[in-house]
């Protein structure tokens, strides 16, 4: 596509994108003013945008609109969070900060309860049950699954789980006076296997992070190439 085929807004966006990308890439040489400028712009723009979204998408429809609805029930329901929000603002002033503690405690308490409840019912129990079920299928009902690969897979999962848990077993005993406290020898052995599993897991995660970063890099370079091609095209 030629440069003139883009709208003015697109042209401005492309130029800004090109310059900002170049400025970020300049960090490869060393930390410099251009890179810092981009970081400041990014933080400023992101913060302002988030503020606008919260005002427009949360405060206005979920607080101010119901307050002006005229329905006593709705107003009553909104007044409680409104009061808690005002109390929360008191945290900004050292003398009044204790007034902000109740809403903060409420937020933390409810958040923790929901998160912990979800983790137990949504992750720990289903995952443990799934691991047990896989094992039961392999051992108790040999006729049910004859696929030896599944059996190997289950064995690896079992070994990996136990060994990794052993790695995080930090209880140590002082075996001889004057020596450093240490774990039992058999736990040390299993923990060594657990370390291997952890290393493989971190390696897999690193590969994923690298792939995601590569996608971002290629996308940016592609945008720059397209910009230059459009600029140079007749």
């Amino acid at each position, binding site marked *: 596509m030629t440069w003139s085929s883009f709208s003015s807004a697109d042209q401005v966006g492309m130029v800004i994108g090109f310059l900002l990308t170049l400025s970020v890439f300049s960090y490869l040489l060393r930390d410099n003013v251009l890179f810092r400028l981009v970081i400041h712009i990014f933080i400023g723009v992101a913060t302002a945008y*988030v503020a606008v979204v919260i005002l427009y998408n949360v405060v206005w429809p979920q607080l101010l609109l119901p307050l002006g609805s005229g329905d006593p029930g709705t107003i009553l329901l909104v007044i409680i969070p409104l009061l808690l929000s005002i109390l929360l603002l008191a945290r900004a002033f050292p003398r009044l900060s204790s007034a902000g503690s109740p809403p903060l405690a409420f937020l933390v308490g409810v*958040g923790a309860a929901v998160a912990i409840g*979800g983790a137990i019912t*949504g992750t720990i129990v289903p995952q443990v049950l799934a691991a047990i079920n896989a094992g039961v299928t392999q051992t108790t009902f040999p006729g049910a699954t004859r696929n030896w690969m599944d059996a190997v897979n289950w064995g690896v999962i079992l070994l990996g789980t136990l060994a990794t848990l052993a790695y995080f077993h930090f209880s140590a005993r002082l075996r001889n006076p004057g020596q450093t406290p240490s774990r039992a020898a058999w736990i040390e052995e299993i923990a060594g296997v657990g370390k291997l599993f952890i290393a493989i897991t971190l390696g897999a995660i690193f590969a994923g992070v690298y792939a*995601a970063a590569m*996608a971002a890099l290629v996308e940016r370079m592609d945008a720059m*190439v397209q910009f230059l091609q459009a600029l140079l095209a007749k």
Partner: protein
Amino acid sequence: MSDEDDQVTCAECGFENPLEAERCQNCGADLPAAFAENLLAQVPGQEPFINKARITPAQQVHLRLLGEMLAVEGQALLLGISPRRAGYTTLRIGTSLVLFLVLLFSLLANKPVFTHPSLTSEALEARQLVYALTPGAPVLFVVDYQPGFSGEMTRLGQGVLAHILAQRAYPVFLSTHPTGPAQAEVFITDLGINTGIAYLTPDQYLNLGYLPGGPSGLLSFSQAPQQVMPLTADGNSAWQDPPLQTIQSLSDFSLVLVMTEDPDTARTWIEQAGPQLQGKPLMLLLSAQAEPSLRPYLESGSGQVQGMVSGVSGGVAYQDSAVFTLQSDTSGITWSAYSLGLWVGAILLLLAGLYGVFRLVREQENELSRGDKP
């Protein structure tokens, strides 16, 4: 504190001091009450109120340790300036240059070097879920990724969204990130450019906007979507028109699809929204970096996740397998450049690892040879 009520034991020398003494009469060390008072005086805004505390010798030791920790906490540590590694800057710039040149060459050449990947079994299941959608079926499409990942996520999700729209299902966008609503709009606009179709709201899709509250907000939305998100992102009423009139809970959506780069975000959706789905499928569109952490939810057979498309490779394979056409390389990344970049990165990592091993062996040999010399 000694057993006798009128004496206090010094933790340093064990001398028995009168209760009113602030310092040990033998060695001059702070006694517990004075020590605790001094400790509290270091904490801003705290008035010392402990006087003549009854503290055991073990507690005295703990207090002393705490005091030492507090004292160190306030001190600025002088970091040793590591000697500048010779050639480190050159190596960094050289590595980047290799990567840039390879990618640039691939992008300018614009010739397919690597064949597209084929669909994985989980992506096949995901495709089946989308094929099962009937016209007008409401699909909750969660756009929960950071803007920095838009290159990967756009390539990953465009094929799936195009497939949903081709099925004439009705995507409803939602995000627990404040930047999500704008990204959803950009996402569908880009898709429109790629397919040559202008998708319009509220005829073909709806954007509910930003859902605040983290896990609590998500749980509330799962139970009562109409009460929690009454309006769309542009301030209009969200639930009055079909096909959303009948939605009372999350289980009334035909499919819930979460697109994210963050394992914790996906986990929160699985944990909070999963139990409310009552058998309706949950599908994940994941960045390559989140996939390893979330695969157990798919492979455990618990049915928590019923379809998954991950990374650029998953997106490319899904796009290739679908019945619609996208002008795929007009925006976003190209598959060949991406694959080449991965290969170059892997080779560089391997070379660096080999160099590290070589250097280690050499250092050990040098140490051994030094040890042999008298």
